[in-house]
């Protein structure tokens, strides 16, 4: 996320959520990035009334994330499979303004499109941190994997604003900055 803010050719603030917005973060881990997003949308004590649903599948990560949530009102932890619409939908009361997916699994672009089309509001910001090394080797080399992912995004209701290559800061990573139509 930080690398993409440094590398973007557009206004970096366009990629970040605004104060008081409703956000979804898949692959929250122990909440490092989530805490920075919390600074943007909630402020201390959540005086901006923002909300982040931070999802992770690992109980080990959730253990630390829960402690962060105790300290930072506005972040809500969810131990669930981020790829499952059924597991996520009871926890999303209205479509979100900002969505970031940071999962180390195969089919990241397909998951991103599936989740965005269900939970991201029209005009909402969708950021996909794509990890080439997590995609299937059978898809081809890293370049080919990125191309496949980009094609999946282009064929969806998402509009790609920028493809940010993070080489040098994060190897084999690309961030797609998208908007929902």
């Amino acid at each position, binding site marked *: 996320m930080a690398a993409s803010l440094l590398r973007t050719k557009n206004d970096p603030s366009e990629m970040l959520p605004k104060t008081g917005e409703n956000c979804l973060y898949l692959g929250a881990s122990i909440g490092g990035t989530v805490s920075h997003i919390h600074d943007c949308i909630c402020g201390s004590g959540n005086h901006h009334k923002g909300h982040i649903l931070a999802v992770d599948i690992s*109980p*080990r990560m*959730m*253990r630390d*994330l*829960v402690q962060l*949530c*105790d300290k930072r*009102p506005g972040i*809500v*932890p*969810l*131990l*669930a499979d981020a790829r499952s*619409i*059924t*597991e996520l*939908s*009871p*926890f*999303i*009361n*209205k*479509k979100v303004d900002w969505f970031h997916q940071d999962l180390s699994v195969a089919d990241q672009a397909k998951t991103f499109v599936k989740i965005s089309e*269900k*939970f991201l509001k029209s005009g909402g910001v969708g950021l996909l941190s794509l990890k080439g090394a997590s995609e299937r*080797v059978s898809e081809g080399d890293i370049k080919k994997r990125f191309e496949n992912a980009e094609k999946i995004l282009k064929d969806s209701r998402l509009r790609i604003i920028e493809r940010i290559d993070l080489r040098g800061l994060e190897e084999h990573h690309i961030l797609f900055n998208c908007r929902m139509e």
Partner: protein
Amino acid sequence: MQVHYDWRLARILNDDGVVIDEILWNSSKSISSVAKRLFELKKGRLSNEAKILFDRFDNVKIHPQGHLDDPNWPEYSNEERELFEKALINMAKLGVAESSGNIDRRMDMLVSSANEIRSAWTTSESRCIEWIGLFLTELNLEIKRKNIIETVAFCDTIQEVATSLETVSPLHTPAHNEWSTMKKHCESVIGLSNRMSDHEDSIRLLALEYIPSLSALLGPLGASKLVVLAGSRERLARMPSGSLQVLGADAAMAAHRNGAPPPKHGSVLFSMPQVSKSPRWVRGKVARYIAGKASIAVRIDHFDGKPWGESEIEEIFKEVKTIIDKFPNPPKRK
């Protein structure tokens, strides 16, 4: 008509989006009761209110995401929002607590910890042997290797060690502190050996309970290593036997992707004497056969089949012998 619902209420809407009926969740709301409801919804179940509305009308569909496209769906009140957030924190804490009931995770801790102890033991044991060998220059480090460390741990001086191991006294002796450090290091190696035995006993007990058929075939230690390498018993049970055959052969698989021949077996299958003690030209065939049987064994264990006993294992090993006997000579080079 479609039922829209979340944890607070359910509504039924006609095709024009007009609300026909509505049921609110009226019970007293506590963090635990909200968490319980959300937990059921997360499993894909309907709330009681949604079920009642679904049964009350004919030709009713359920909104697949509860209510998300409904523009008139009520937002959370401050109270509801607070309750919801606290319930989610509770659910996450419960989920973390429940993870200790996961046998796969416990097996992973035991096996990984045993691997680390083995690695530490190998390094420290070699160091101790070399250290003693520096002083006792006439001592045969190969033949006496098994006794050296214990002897040092139980002796008070290096001369005493030399006498006990029937070798000549050292020309130079270590300083008092140096000797004491060396002795303590040897004692720690013995401690590591004991801890290793404890770990292996625990792994055996767990594996015999959790993966009895696979343990009968590969031995409990090998079987549990396979489960850990696969990630869980379920993942191992769903894995093709060809993948199971090469579990633990990561480097060889990486080389294979760059054009090298495929590995015949992973580290766990190679540790079986039926594979490692066979002639090299049948190892692949034996590994493939055992991997196939291991794949069936773990499926029996995971999907509650009748565990294999001695007779099934005997039959498998008889077949292994037939394979080995069928190929007494190496294949001709092409």
